[in-house]
């Protein structure tokens, strides 16, 4: 047990706050504060992670949270979540169409020549993980020249900004079951508790704002052998989806803004004993705010695994909706882990009272095995 804080808690907390701030600014005389746009641009993948795990597409606020939380993605996502509680819900947004995504990257590992072509976009997939020492002392002039030089180097093209989805091509060939739009209303995880069984829309929403590492770990368990998805990436897309909303006066849809997102479909082996009709491939779907490919792929694999679990019952952890969905949220899990740091003196006191009483009773009338002590 220990020391009960009768006094001093307040002073200690104020001190802790100051101590954290002191370390944030400890760079000293040579230090310059990070600007939010620098974080949003130069740490764009970190910002992406925070907007998706925070469940709110606001890159600038995410950048502020990253600065304030000194780079802790869990805490930054948490700050974004809490901010949501102060804002009213203004309207029911109509369903948006991701095929209108303005792409910056698009690949398929299933087909060489996909309609519209493959474009690697800004990826480090094939980059050698060698330290670029030239970045150590980058001059502002060089830094600012880079993008301009890149643009000048590229000949203007007649590329469209939207492309057909690969899975649609597969459907036309009959390799995938036709897309049957479902009427069922989407599950709102920000308002309704997850009481199992939950619809697939609840699973997709939960994974879309899940913590990347948690999602990856459970998906990896399936890839390694605690599962049988064996995915092939039909298409992985990164781009900006225009958000079309009805003009309050005319009622006609207008473009109110854009949202950067990553979307991925994986094809998994067909199910021999599937439905009636001829066997087809099965699909898994993953998507999240921002540019976060590992998260989208992990989610797609888990979606496919959960589809199986929801239909036939789980045969391993990654197919169990309750196991997966209740343990991938970074804000919940982090919060609960942290709360154990709080005082539990009173409950522990009455625990000891119960233990002693039962011990006394046990010693009073010793059992053959002898009394616990």
């Amino acid at each position: 047990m220990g020391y009960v804080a009768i006094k001093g808690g307040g002073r200690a907390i104020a001190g802790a706050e100051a101590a954290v701030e002191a370390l944030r600014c400890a760079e000293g005389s040579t230090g310059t504060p990070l600007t939010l746009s620098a974080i949003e641009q130069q740490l764009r993948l970190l910002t992406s992670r925070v907007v998706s795990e925070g469940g709110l597409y606001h890159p600038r606020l995410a950048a502020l949270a990253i600065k304030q939380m000194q780079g802790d993605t869990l805490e930054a996502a948490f700050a974004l979540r809490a901010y949501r509680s102060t804002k009213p819900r203004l309207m029911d947004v109509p369903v948006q169409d991701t095929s209108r995504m303005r792409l910056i990257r698009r690949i398929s590992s299933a087909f060489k020549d996909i309609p519209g072509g493959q474009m690697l976009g800004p990826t480090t997939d094939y980059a050698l993980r060698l330290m670029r020492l030239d970045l150590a002392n980058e001059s502002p002039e060089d830094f600012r020249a880079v993008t301009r030089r890149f643009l000048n180097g590229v000949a203007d093209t007649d590329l469209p900004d939207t492309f057909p989805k690969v899975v649609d091509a597969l459907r036309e060939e009959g390799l995938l079951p036709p897309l049957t739009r479902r009427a069922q209303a989407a599950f709102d995880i920000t308002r309704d508790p997850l009481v199992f069984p939950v619809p697939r829309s609840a699973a997709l929403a939960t994974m879309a704002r899940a913590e990347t590492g948690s999602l990856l770990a459970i998906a990896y368990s399936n890839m390694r052998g605690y599962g049988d998805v064996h995915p092939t990436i039909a298409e992985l897309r990164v781009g900006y989806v225009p958000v079309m909303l009805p003009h309050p006066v005319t009622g006609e849809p207008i473009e109110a803004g854009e949202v950067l997102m990553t979307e991925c479909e994986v094809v998994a082996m067909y199910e021999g004993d599937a439905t009636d009709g001829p066997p087809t491939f099965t699909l898994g779907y993953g998507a999240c705010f921002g540019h976060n490919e590992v998260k989208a792929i992990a989610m797609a694999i888990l979606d496919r695994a959960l589809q199986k679990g929801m239909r036939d019952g789980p045969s391993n952890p990654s197919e169990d909706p309750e196991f997966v969905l209740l343990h991938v949220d970074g804000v919940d899990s982090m919060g609960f882990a942290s709360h154990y740091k709080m005082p539990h003196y009173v409950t522990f006191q009455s625990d000891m009272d119960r233990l002693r009483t039962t011990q006394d009773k046990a010693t009073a009338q010793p059992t053959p095995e002898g009394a616990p002590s």
Partner: protein
Amino acid sequence: MNPGYELPLDEAGYSFGFLDEYAKREVRRTILKAISIPGYQTPYASREMPMGRGFGTGGLQVTLSLIGKGDTLKVIDQGADDSVNAVNLRHFVELTCPGVDTTEHTAEATLIQSRHRIPETPLTEAQVLILQVPYPDPLVVVEPSEARRKVMHGEGDYSRLLTKLYEDIVQFDEITISHRYPTRINGHYVIDPSPIPRYDVPQLHQSPALILLGAGREKKIYAVPPYTRADPLAFDDVPFRTEDFTGEQGQRRACERCGATDSFLDELIADDGGKHWHCSDSDYCNSRVAGQAEQAQETWA
């Protein structure tokens, strides 16, 4: 964001009570239903708060939906106003609710938010007690499915829970539940009274003050209305027992600070390894010490 975007610092101020008005209205509707159905875990859309799940977000959402100018708030954790978590919550309310007073004196408070204790000083009709709840449903131990638990609660069917208690007695000759002691409200719903010690459970019974319980992570609010029966589950032959503070010589231990023999005690271990006993309710202890000081002065005068 567009290159030209700037955060709306002029528009970014937090509104009174942090939560948006729609969220408050929903919590308020939920509270009224919880009072109308004593002990029933009323579901609501719990919002994320700027502190971790498990740090009292449920109690806090209730407090923020109640509080207004003219209120005086007391926040305690483990019975102490200056316990780190209590300080943190009080600071947050001071930050987001300008014009609200805070106090450490139970008697002065109109709202009391607490984790793990009910103050020793009896509450009045002018006060509301808000308890932070980590696990709201006492039936979880016997029934994993919430759908089935809701039916059992509705029917007031707690046979399986009583069986569980009875098995305890058979094994240990004693009910081993230390805190969160299942308690039946107005003869129907059995609640988890939050992790208060058994010592505090009798205070739920016929309390003049309204008692609200908020579980943020589990998205539930329930209530023990004033002047309402609250009976801890027990058996005729094995009665409900509160914590026992009898010392080696069979006397009731006293607080070594204020001498109280009628309060819940914290057991402290000093650096020399010796055991010491203090009131867990710091305000109760402090005001007794202060009272004794006054008396001492009077006797000198």
